[in-house]
């Protein structure tokens, strides 16, 4: 028998030079925060300090919003074709510096380089390319002339896909003629600040894109600023509700991309091996830090035992470790706080009576890690079957009939995504029609494309990002 030795393949971090300290990007300039306060950003895979970024205060937000207002005066007077060209240029520059961004994303956020390099960065560039082409075709996009840009848009994004969420927000906002104040997440601010350099390189007029860093308090200052015309938020349902409440009674647009607890339904007539692969991708992609993750596996009773056996075997082959190792499947959990949350919910699942399976693997000594985890023997009432865990934890439920599968799938306040696995076409369409979910993946999971609208039903939020429908999130209908 051959003794296979594992040899790692580490992407060099040297391609990106990380500054000791970063500033905000306001009015086309890199400016020190008026607050004079900074927060640390660490690498979740080593807990080493990477850099410091501004903890922006009211004055900083004021400056950013004022700059975006001035930027709007310039941006809205350009021809649509000029706006289109800026976006094309940004897309190109991202492609050129894509390796640098990918390494920085993995360092700051903990995701495997395989994903930041092959998924996040190509998608970031693709989003700018896609919306670049809409900028001069807005009159053709929806059969109405009454759609106008909002003006200054405040954008608050999460830590799971830092640069991709930036692209999902900035590309359509700029294409529709708005200007933005964007705040990246507290734990993953670095790629957004590197993106500011791209804006500078592209020669984007000052004030069109403003990037300010900080924590929840900074986000709240943006939401409550009197001159903000629209807020676009991606994050937890809890914070989304607070934002919706803060905006009550104000003439400010709002789109919310919130949590999810997606059902991944596997019928007995599915192609089982493909389904196993899809289910693994559905929950373990990006450490399960995905709002649309297929976190509730719904198995038809007749295939439960066989499926779980194959799933556990496949899970065991997942490689957990250094995000910069090109072989790594599962990187670091984004923060200590998130790790604690996952651990807490998993413990609760065990106490409730769920049967726990975790893969056997060595975890690095430093950093935040969690083993790929599967729960079976779960009741729908357990919190692991109801709450968004946002980690590499899959919960299994069973059903007997398609009607029952749909009922269980929809029995949640969320409605972001869902998966259906069957080889029978009519059953796919029947099921997809009945699922309360903004995205339905049939015989696939976690596929994304800038042309494909994404967004939720019910408490998963409102508005769509991507596609022709995504334009509507940044255009105001006036009668």
């Amino acid at each position, binding site marked *: 028998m051959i003794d296979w030795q594992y040899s790692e393949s580490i992407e060099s971090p040297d391609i990106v030079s990380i500054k000791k300290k970063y500033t905000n990007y306001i009015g086309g300039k890199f400016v020190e925060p008026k607050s004079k306060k900074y927060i640390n950003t660490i690498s979740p895979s080593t807990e080493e300090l990477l850099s410091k970024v501004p903890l922006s205060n009211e004055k900083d937000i004021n400056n950013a919003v004022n700059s975006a207002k001035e930027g709007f005066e310039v941006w809205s007077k350009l021809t649509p074709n000029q706006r289109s060209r800026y976006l094309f240029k940004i897309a190109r520059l991202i492609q050129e510096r894509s390796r640098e961004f990918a390494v920085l994303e993995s360092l700051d956020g903990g995701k495997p380089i395989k994903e930041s390099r092959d998924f996040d960065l190509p998608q970031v560039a693709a989003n700018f390319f896609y919306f670049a082409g809409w900028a001069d075709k807005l009159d053709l996009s929806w059969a*109405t002339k009454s759609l106008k840009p909002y003006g200054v848009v405040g954008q608050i994004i999460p830590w799971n896909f830092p640069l991709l969420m930036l692209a999902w927000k900035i590309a359509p906002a700029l294409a529709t003629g708005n200007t933005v104040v964007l705040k990246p997440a507290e734990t993953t601010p670095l790629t957004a600040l590197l993106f500011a350099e791209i804006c500078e390189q592209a020669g984007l007029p000052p004030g069109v894109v403003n990037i300010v860093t900080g924590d929840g308090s900074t986000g709240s200052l943006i939401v409550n600023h009197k001159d903000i015309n629209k807020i676009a938020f991606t994050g937890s349902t809890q914070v989304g*509700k607070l934002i919706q409440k803060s905006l009550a009674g104000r003439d400010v647009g709002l789109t919310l991309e919130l949590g999810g607890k997606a059902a991944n339904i596997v019928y007995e007539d599915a192609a089982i091996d493909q389904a196993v692969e899809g289910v693994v991708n559905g929950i373990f992609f990006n450490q399960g830090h995905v709002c649309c993750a297929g976190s509730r596996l719904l198995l038809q009773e007749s295939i439960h035992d066989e499926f779980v056996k194959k799933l556990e075997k496949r899970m065991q082959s997942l490689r957990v470790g250094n995000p910069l190792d090109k072989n790594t499947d599962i990187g670091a959990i984004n923060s200590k706080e998130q790790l604690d949350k996952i651990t807490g919910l998993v413990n609760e699942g065990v106490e409730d009576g769920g049967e726990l399976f975790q893969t056997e693997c060595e975890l690095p000594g430093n950093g935040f890690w969690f083993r790929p985890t599967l729960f079976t023997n779960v009741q729908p009432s357990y919190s692991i079957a109801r709450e968004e865990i946002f980690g590499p934890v899959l919960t299994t439920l069973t059903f007997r009939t398609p009607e029952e599968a749909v009922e269980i799938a929809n029995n949640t306040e969320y409605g972001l995504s869902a998966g259906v696995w069957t080889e029978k076409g009519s059953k796919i369409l029947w099921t997809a029609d009945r699922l309360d979910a*903004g995205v339905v993946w*049939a015989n696939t999971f976690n*596929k994304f494309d800038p042309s494909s609208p994404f967004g939720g039903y019910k408490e998963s939020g409102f508005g769509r990002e991507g596609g022709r429908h995504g334009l509507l999130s940044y255009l105001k209908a006036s009668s």
Partner: protein
Amino acid sequence: MIDIKKTYKNYVDGKYVRSESGKTYTKELKNEFYELPLTSKKDIRDAVTSSKDGYKKWSSTTPYLRMQILYRLSEMIEGNKESYVELLMDHGLTKQKATKDIDESIQNIVWFAGLADKWEQLAGNLNPVSEEYFNISHQNPIGVVFSLSGSNISLNELLMSILPSLTVGCSVISYSEENSVLALKFAEDINNSDFPSGSLNILSGKFENILNDVSKHVEINLVAIHKDLNNGGLKAIEQNASESVKRVFSKPSIEGLSSILPYLETKTVWHPKGT
């Protein structure tokens, strides 16, 4: 000889009902006065129960049939045109204005009737994703809509607060204050147009009495307000709505395609292509 005066009641689940509270309020017109139902919290809950059921029936009605039922409504109103004109004149409108309002109403119903089997083609599309996948975005109606009508005495304005959401398959709870006599008269034509029960419920009363019940009710999916509210009414609605991420639209556009957009949820379905 003594005149017989019509008693107007709420229209819920295909039936004419008094408010369970037994309360009414008076509406005095030029020649006539009416005692109208003062809708209570319980009435709203009953209406929502009916609307949930009505949503199932109405949204699963084929677009072809929805189109014909809406067209039938225009036939009903055309047939009762004179009585509408008379009622509007009793509200103080000139004959000319009243006639124009009814003509415009009929025109708009016909427009939306014809949209019932076309909006999915206008609001949905195939998405050209860059891998081998079939990817389509289409729409579901958002569900149960509560619509507060405007304060002008106009059948056309009342209709424009109902038709966009009704046409796409939502069930609607239409609530009127100032123009409630007109709204409850209109209920009779709804009743004669083959709409499934619960697809459109029509109620009258004082909105402030039920503002919290409506905006906190988790089974109302969207609240549309077609008039200016005093005393921070909109703020209160939006604060309550945030508890369940309920959609709230204040004076939504009633122009063309943009009129139906608030009432749609876009669903995108992916499937691989292969052999």
